[in-house]
């Protein structure tokens, strides 16, 4: 009952960044920082478009061969004068289709997840912060032994 009341009183933030900002503001002593961001599908498409337009053969030697890489290659062969924007638009569609098939595109791809520094403070404070993040509508994966360094992964 208390949880339901609390959920009603706490409007869901507009996006993952606003959620992190809320937590940073509410727990200033925890000195939480965003440590890692995902890359949007659009930015991934733009990066791949830049790479293939710079050097198509180099592009083919940059990525592991997969169906979506073949589709991108075919698009450039069929549209040799395509602009960066036209290529990006097409690649965005190709990436979305590939993701729909379950293909791996990039470990970076997510606009709804952030990594944050582990909040400073006691276990009690950390638990309180984790509960607050959940209350705001995200999930927390604690990664104290990650190869890239200890952090919390926040999924929106």
């Amino acid at each position, binding site marked *: 009952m208390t949880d339901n009341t609390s959920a009603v009183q706490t409007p869901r933030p507009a996006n993952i960044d606003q959620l992190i900002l809320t937590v940073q503001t509410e727990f200033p002593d925890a000195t939480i920082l965003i*440590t890692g961001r995902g890359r949007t599908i659009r930015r991934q498409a733009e990066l791949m478009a830049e790479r293939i337009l710079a050097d198509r053969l180099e592009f083919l030697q940059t990525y592991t061969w997969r169906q979506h890489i073949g589709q991108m290659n075919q698009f450039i062969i069929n549209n040799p004068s395509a602009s960066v924007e036209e290529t990006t638009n097409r690649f965005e569609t190709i990436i979305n289709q590939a993701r729909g098939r379950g293909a791996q595109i990039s*470990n970076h791809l997510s606009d709804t997840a952030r990594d944050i520094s582990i909040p400073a403070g006691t276990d009690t404070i950390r638990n309180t912060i984790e509960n607050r993040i959940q209350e705001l509508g995200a999930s927390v994966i604690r990664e104290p032994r990650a190869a890239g*360094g200890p952090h919390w992964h926040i999924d929106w």
Partner: protein
Amino acid sequence: MRLINEKFLSILLLFFVSSCMAETEPKQAWWLDLTITPSETTLDNLPVSDFNKNWKHANYLDTTLLTKYISSTEANELTHSKLKLTLSKDLNNNNLVETIKVGIFKKKNNKKGIFLAIFEDSRLIKVFSDSTNKGFSASIVNNKRIHWYKCIKCGNYETIYWNGKTYVLE
């Protein structure tokens, strides 16, 4: 007197606007904000155009360069992590050691980005670049695979491996 009052009000307004703006974006770690302007035209005695024909300037990232932009406390976060700016290991089992170096580049059109270069026996054999990130990257080798991180204390990396013919992104 009126001029002083106007100046005072302007400064007050500036502080107010600044404080409002500061609250709209969450605070993030230095490696996500790091911006370094590349300055070198050669790296390891190679023209940067050997790394990529479209590049104008580039620099390897090293502690000396980084500490011009970040504090020693911030630099310690990298030093105390497993991430490396340069590392060496035989990654394709040919008994020749690969050296992996990360850096930053600026293209002839002034677009900036980061790169990871792979040398084998001191010979440049592959360069990966990423213009969606501007300032920082580092790497770890895990089971003959390079994990190219764009941040510290995070899980975001790209995997580079030897496919039998060349190094490719997974």
